C-alpha cells in the first residue's frame, strides 16, 4: 500500500520535473523507463508470478491491436465480415462457445475498423 503512495509521489515529481525543467532527452526518456518499470515491478510484487502471464498476454494483445491499426482499413472490415459469416455455421453444429468467440471477434473488428477510420489520419503521418 505504502509502495503505491511512494510510486505515485515519485511519478508526480517526475512529471513536474520534465514539464517545468528542460532536461536532456535521454534523461527524460531514461527516467520515464525507470518509473514505468518500477510501476511494472510494483504490479509484479502485488500480484505475484501470475503477473508475468498477464504481462505477456497484454503484450500480445497490444501487438495484435497495432497490427490491425497499421494494416489497410479494408482488412478490418473484411475480417469482420468473414468472422460474421462463419458464426452461424458454428451455431448450426452446436459449437456455441466457438460461435460466441467468432461473433465477438467480428464485433471487435468492426470497432477497430471504425476506430481506425476516425483516428488514423489524425495520428499517423506517413
Amino acid at each position, binding site marked *: 500500500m505504502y509502495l503505491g503512495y511512494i510510486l505515485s509521489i515519485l511519478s508526480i515529481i517526475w512529471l513536474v520535473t520534465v514539464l517545468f525543467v528542460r532536461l536532456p532527452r535521454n534523461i527524460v526518456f531514461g527516467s520515464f523507463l525507470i518509473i514505468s518499470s518500477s510501476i511494472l515491478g510494483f504490479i509484479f510484487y502485488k500480484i505475484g508470478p501470475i503477473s508475468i502471464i498477464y504481462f505477456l498476454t497484454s503484450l500480445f494483445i497490444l501487438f495484435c491491436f497495432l497490427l490491425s491499426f497499421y494494416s489497410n482499413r479494408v482488412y478490418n472490415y473484411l475480417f469482420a465480415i468473414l468472422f460474421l459469416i462463419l458464426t452461424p455455421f458454428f451455431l448450426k453444429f452446436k459449437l456455441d*462457445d466457438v460461435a460466441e468467440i467468432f461473433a465477438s471477434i467480428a464485433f471487435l473488428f468492426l470497432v477497430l475498423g471504425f476506430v481506425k477510420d476516425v483516428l488514423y489520419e489524425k495520428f499517423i503521418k506517413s
Partner: protein
Amino acid sequence: MKNLLKASFFIFLIGVLFLTSGAKSGDTEVFLKVINNSGFKTDNFTSNSINFDSTTRLIKTNKNAFVETYSLPNSFFSKFTQELEYKILFFVCNSDYEEASLFKCSNNKVENLNPKNFRYEQVVLDDAKNDEKVIISSYTSNEGSSTIFVIPSSSFENNFKINLITDYLSSINKSSKVSVDNPNITEKTFSQNLDDYLKSTSLELFIYSIVTIFFALFVGKIIIYLRNNYKNLNFNIAFNLLEDFIFGSFSKNRYLKLFFISSITFYIILFLQFIPSYIGSKTVFLKQMVLNILEFNLFGELSKWNYDNVIFYSYTYFIIFLILVSRFDYLVEVIKNLFSKVKEYSVNQEAIKYTFIIPNILTTLLFISFNKFFSFEFLLYILLFNLFIGILLYKQKTDLFILFSLREKIIIVSSVIILSLGVFYYQNFSLRTSYKFENLIGVPDKIVSLPYKKQTSENVLFNNLSEYKINYPLFVDEFLIYHPNYSKYSNKNISKFDDSNSNYLVVSKTYERLVRGLLSNTDTIKNLESSSGQKLFFVNLPEDNLSQVTLITDLNCSYKTTNTFKVKIYYFEGTSFKNTEFILGNILGCNSESQRYTFKLPVEVVSQNNFMLELLGIDLRFVNSLKFELEDKESIVNFKEITVKNNFYYYVSSTLNPDTEITNYFVSDKKDVSFDNSNITENLNTLKRDKFIGNTFNIWSNYSYRIFSY
C-alpha cells in the same frame, strides 16, 4: 513428380472425408463415458474393476464407486457401506432388481421401499427445451457417510438425457471435492490467481487475438490475393492458394509437403481410433479434448502405463508444432512488416498529446494511488501503451518541455495533485463502503450441487439467485439462512441455549467440538431426535464417584464377525474436555438367537456425573438392547441415544414441529445473528456485509448433493 504430389494431395483430401464420415457414435458403455465426461477420475476401467461374480462389476475411482450390473449378490450394499468405504455409488438398473428394504428397480423406474437407515430423495432433471426428463433416486445413509444414486438404464436412451445426467454427475463430482475448512487467506495462491486469470478479460482478448492471428496466417494470403487480383483467378492460382492454405511455408518443398500429408493422415487415423465410440455432445467432447491436451502429463501417463494416451497426446503436440512451424515464416513476415510501418510512420504530436498522453498520465497516477480497488489489468494496458507512445515520441525527438504550453503544464500538474489527494482522502478517511455485486454462482456449469465453496473478495455482495426452487435447509458455514418449513431463523451460540423454542439444530464443523458443545450444555440433549445412524449415548449417573458401572448389551446373532468391542468416552474433568478409548472385550459370536455381553466401565471415567459414550467396533444395527447397571443393581441409570449426522458438517436435530421459528446453535466463537425473512440472498448478504463469514465460505445443506442452481 508434380502430378504425383497433386494426386497424393487429392487422395489425402478424399481420405479425410472418408475417415471423418465413418466417425459415428455408438451406445456401448455409455455409462462409463458419462462418468468420464463428468470428471470422475477413472484411469483405466478394465484394470480397476473388481468382479464380484460373473454379472457384477465394481469400477473403482479415487474415492467413489460405480456399479453396472444385471444382478447383485445379497448384501451388496452392506458391502458397499461397511467394507468398501466409498462415499458415492451410482447404481444403473438394467433389469428387474430388488435391494431388500431399500428399493425395487427395473430398466425404466425405481420404486422406493422406505428404508430406515437411508434417507430417500428424488432428483428430477428437466430439459424443458427438448421435453426430456430424468428421475434419479438417491439414498443417503442416515449418518451421511455414503450416498447411492439409482438410475434406470432408460435414462441413457438419448443424448438429451445423457447430457442431463452428465451435468448432474459433474456437479456431484465437484461438490464431493469441497472441503469443510475455509482457510482465512489474505493473499491469493497462484492457483487462485490462475483461476481469476481464466475468468479475466485479458484471457478473453488473448483468445480473440490468437484466433485472429491464426486465421490471418491461414487465410491472409488468399484474402490479399482475392482483393487485389480477383479478376485474374484461374484453376492453377486457386489450387496454389489452396495449397498455401493447407501447407503454409511447406508448400515450397515437395518432400516437406509429403511429410506433412503423411503426418496429418496418420493423425486422423489415430484420432478416429482414439475418439470414444459415444460422443454425448460435441462441445463437451471438444472442451474435454482441449483440457486433456493442456493437462497432459507425459511422465504421469508413462508411470501408469497408459501408452494409448502417451502416443495420442504426444502426437497431438507434434501436429500442433508442425502446423506452427508451417506458419512461422508468415508470422515473422507480419512482425517485420509491423515494425517497418511503426518505424516508417511518425505520429502527430499535437493530436496525441490531448487524446493519449494527458489522459494516460492521469489514469496511471490514479490507479497507482487507488490500490484499494486496484485494477492492475487496466494499469498494465495503460502502462504498456504509455511505453509504446513514449518510445515513438523519443524516436521523433519530442521534448515534453516544448510540447506542452505553460497553461497546459499547470492544468496537468494541478489535476494530478487534486486527483491524487482526492483518492487518498477517499481511500483513508471516507466512511462509506461501496460494494460490488456479483453472481453467487461463479461457474459456468449448468447444474451446481451442494456443498458449494464460494471464494470472493472484500466488499462483494451477491445478486439475487435464479428462479430455481430450493426446498431444503440451507446453511452458510455454521449459519442457517433458510429452511423451507420456517420463516424465522435464529443463529446462537450453544451457551445461550433457550428451551422456549423446541425446534432447534446444533451444528459443528468437527465431531468432537459438537460432542463438547452438547456435553457443556446438557439441556440441549433432552429434545434431540433419535433415529438410526451414528450413535452417541448421553449417560446421566444418579450420583458422582461411583465405583462400578456395568454395560449390558444384547447382540443380534446374525452378526457373525468376531470383533473387538471398544467404547470411546467423552467427559469434562473440571473445565477441560477429555476423551478416552477403552477396549472392553471381544465379541465372539453367539450360540442362540441373541447373546448377552457384560462389560465393566473404567472407574476413572464413571466417577463423572455425565458423560457421552460411543460404541466402536460393532455395527449398531445388531445391538438389540443396551443398558447400564450400577453396583446395587437397583438404581436406574438414565441414558439418551443421540443420532449425530454428518452431511458436510456434523449436526444433531431436535424433533422438528411445525412453527414459524427455528434456532440453529453453533459451537464456535461466532456472533449471534437472526433472520426474519426467507430471502436467501438477503440473509447471505447480511452475513457477508457484517463479516459473520469471510471471503471464502461454504454453502451446504444437511441433505447431500442437492441441486442449488439449475
